[in-house]
């Protein structure tokens, strides 16, 4: 202990210029810091807004399609097909129509109606519309009819205000003949993938997604809920339970592509399940979603107060009855919210499905769990790789559909949470 006298400290004089300047500097730093925080938020939110606006701007055009009213005189057309066979319907009619040379007939009709070279104004899939029209009304084959067929990508983007020089004159000619109109593209919501961007649809991919999600939900939900119940309510604290907990927490953080490798090695190469099938996709995504459901489920179960359990036990319920009659119903809203969020994540997942071969070109919607299928995010990925510029707006349109589905699911989760959440 030194006895040196402590010099009496002068109280700080806050009024001096130096001090005032120092305070001003500190306050300025405070304002700058605060502004930086605000800027960080605004820029992050701005990025989200920019992303959505870009997708909307490009994608809304994808929901419309330009169609040309094409007059076809079937009585003079060079096609050999019996109207009675078509009227009979079934496979016979389909085969007869497929071999009737409709693509040629459609192209000739365009040249006749709008002058030579007009066949290039039509989409490659234009004859499909003619086929469907004949299928719907075989009587057309005996007369001259006007059928709306999709226009080519060039004409389509010209009609939507993005003309190329060649398409401009064609467009003027078609407008002059009053044979062109742009309307809502119902085919986009009802068809599957195709090689021509003017006739593609997302229904095939959407149906594949729904089937895959069905398998995922069917497996991940019961297993996830059961595992959560066991770990939270019954598990003794020992090394085994620790191991289960550690693996669940780690599985939740494993990159999704690893699950794809697992699916490829186990489901395809070991069990020889069919490639690109919704059932394999569903299995793979279920393994990925299950940890999410377990973690959400455990939190929901944890929040049910012990008094409920004690009361049920007190009047003679068995541990299983306590859980299934009381704890589970009370925790269910929380579990469901977690499940929906996990399912939304699985629905947007692409990488693991690429690994198990769901990137094939599939032109018909899958009709079962083992049919080759693709899913919405993979379809977006495939279209984004296409060179034809007509696919750009279709990709953005598919993204809009995906985002709308995801937003609905998340909205449902938030609604459920707000409606059923109990504060104990």
């Amino acid at each position, binding site marked *: 202990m030194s006895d040196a006298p402590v010099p009496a400290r002068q109280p700080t004089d806050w009024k001096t210029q130096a001090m005032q300047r120092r305070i001003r500097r500190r*306050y300025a*730093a*405070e304002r700058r810091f*605060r502004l930086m*925080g605000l*800027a*960080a*938020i605004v*820029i*992050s*939110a701005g*990025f*989200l807004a920019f*992303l959505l606006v*870009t*997708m909307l701007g490009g994608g809304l055009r994808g929901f419309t399609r330009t169609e040309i009213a094409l007059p076809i005189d079937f009585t003079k057309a060079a096609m050999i097909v019996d109207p009675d066979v078509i009227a009979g319907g079934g496979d016979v009619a389909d085969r007869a129509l497929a071999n009737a040379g409709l693509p040629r007939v459609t192209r000739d009709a365009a040249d006749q109606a709008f002058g030579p070279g007009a066949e290039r104004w039509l989409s490659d899939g234009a004859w499909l519309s003619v086929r469907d029209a004949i299928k719907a009304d075989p009587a057309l084959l005996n007369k001259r009819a006007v059928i709306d067929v999709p226009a080519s990508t060039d004409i389509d983007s010209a009609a939507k205000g993005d003309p190329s020089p060649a398409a401009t004159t064609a467009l003027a000619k078609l407008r002059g003949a009053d044979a062109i109109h742009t309307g809502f593209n119902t085919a986009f919501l009802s068809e599957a993938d195709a090689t021509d961007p003017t006739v593609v649809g997302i229904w095939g991919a959407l149906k594949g997604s729904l089937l895959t999600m069905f398998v995922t939900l069917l497996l991940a939900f019961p*297993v*996830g*809920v*059961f*595992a959560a*119940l*066991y770990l939270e309510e019954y*598990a003794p604290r020992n090394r085994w339970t620790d191991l*289960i907990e550690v*693996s669940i927490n*780690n*599985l939740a*953080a494993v*990159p*999704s*592509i*690893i699950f794809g*490798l*697992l699916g490829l*090695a*186990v489901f395809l190469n070991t069990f020889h399940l069919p490639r690109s099938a919704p059932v394999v996709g569903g299995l793979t995504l279920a393994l990925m979603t299950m940890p999410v459901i377990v973690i959400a489920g455990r939190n929901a179960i944890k929040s049910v107060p012990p008094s409920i359990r004690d009361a049920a036990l007190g009047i003679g319920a*068995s541990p*299983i009855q306590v859980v299934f009659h009381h704890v589970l119903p009370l925790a269910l809203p929380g579990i469901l919210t977690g499940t929906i969020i996990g399912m*939304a*994540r699985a*629905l*947007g*997942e*692409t*990488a693991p499905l*690429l690994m198990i071969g769901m*990137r094939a070109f599939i032109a018909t919607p899958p009709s079962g769990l083992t049919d080759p299928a693709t899913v919405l*995010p993979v379809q*977006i*990925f495939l279209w*984004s790789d296409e060179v034809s510029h007509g696919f*750009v707006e279709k*990709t*953005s349109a598919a*993204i809009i559909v*995906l*985002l709308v589905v*995801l937003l609905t699911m*998340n909205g449902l989760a938030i609604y459920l949470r707000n409606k059923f959440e109990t504060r104990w």
Partner: protein
Amino acid sequence: MAFRRGGVRRFSALPGHYGWYVALWAVIPALVFLLVWASVSPALVTDQVLHDPAAQALPQFDFARASILSEARHIARGDIAAGFNPLSTTLAPAYAAAQSRFDGIGTVLALILAFAGGAFAYVRVRPDFRARTRVERIVMVALLAASLIAILTTVGIVVSLLFESVRFFRMVPITDFLFGTHWSPQVIDSSDPGATLGAVPLFWGTFFIGAVIAMAVAIPFGLMSAIYLTQYANPRVRRWMKPILEMLAGVPTVVYGYFAALTVAPAVRDAAVAIGIQWASSESALAAGMVMGVMIIPFVSSMADDSIAAVPSAMRDGSLAMGATSSETIRRVLLPAALPGVVGGILLAVSRAIGETMIVVMAASGVATLTLNPLASTTTVTKQIVDLLTGEASFDSPKTLAAFALGLTLFVVTLLLNIVALAIVKRYREAYE
């Protein structure tokens, strides 16, 4: 209740439990039998077909034999109309007959088992029979089995990755793979496959995009957002802005990838060309990394949010009472105190970023270069896994197997990152509790 009032002896379980008991006995043994039968019967069917006179003509070689048999099976099932080999068409009826015979046997046996099980259980049902305990024991087993699936999945991942990787490392020395600096799987010299399968450029690219560029975006934005939302924003702003930020994490990665490839990458390239860098790649590491960083913002933000909230308020109040401004309190007191939690969160975010696939698949290039230049093209582990496995190569080539070795590396690295991060976060939480 009714039966007790009548003076009958007490039942030891609810009526429903007896019903469940009988039902479970009827269903479970039969189901187990069907599962076993499904795995055994194909061999029995094939065995019977081989005893068919027509099968004497089968070639002795295993491969040709198996392919003809498999064709015959498909014809018998009606999957295909005719086989490549005429022998398979002659074998098909024998196959169909054997199949239907064993299917019939299986169905009858399952029905007998179901009936026997049900009858056995029904006979045991007595008023003093403890059906509830028995039923609940089965429910317990089901619950335990469900939670074991998590372990099974982990084991499945490790085993399948290890198995294929070991096959890969038999062809390519592990040192070549881990330390080689030349990666071009398109040209594999079969005498020395390790020469073009050195993964160091991939590890660097992954680290550069995921841990450097992405974090350079995500850390400042995520951290500042968390600070603003917890310390400055009023509750209403907080209630609105938090979900909006979280939406960034909810956008599917394929959408980010499309956005990065179509909008950000050309913009980055144009900007680079505008300032005089003519050689800027249109598949630059910068574009992919930036978009990935934006995706990671909410992770960093919510982890930082949690750790800042866990700092005892006495420390904050003390600092403010000494006359420090809010920003001084945050920078000198809250952040240092929350640092372990923030670092743990950042490690988790890095593990997330290096495992991210779609953004790099769509926006990064496939050319592996060892470069420090963010405008040059770089590739990542995940991008290469996708590229390797979507080619035409057969499953036994070093090219396809390399994907599993890369997957194993990725798995191990993310696992280590997660364990370290969780340990840091946990220890830090305990320090303040």
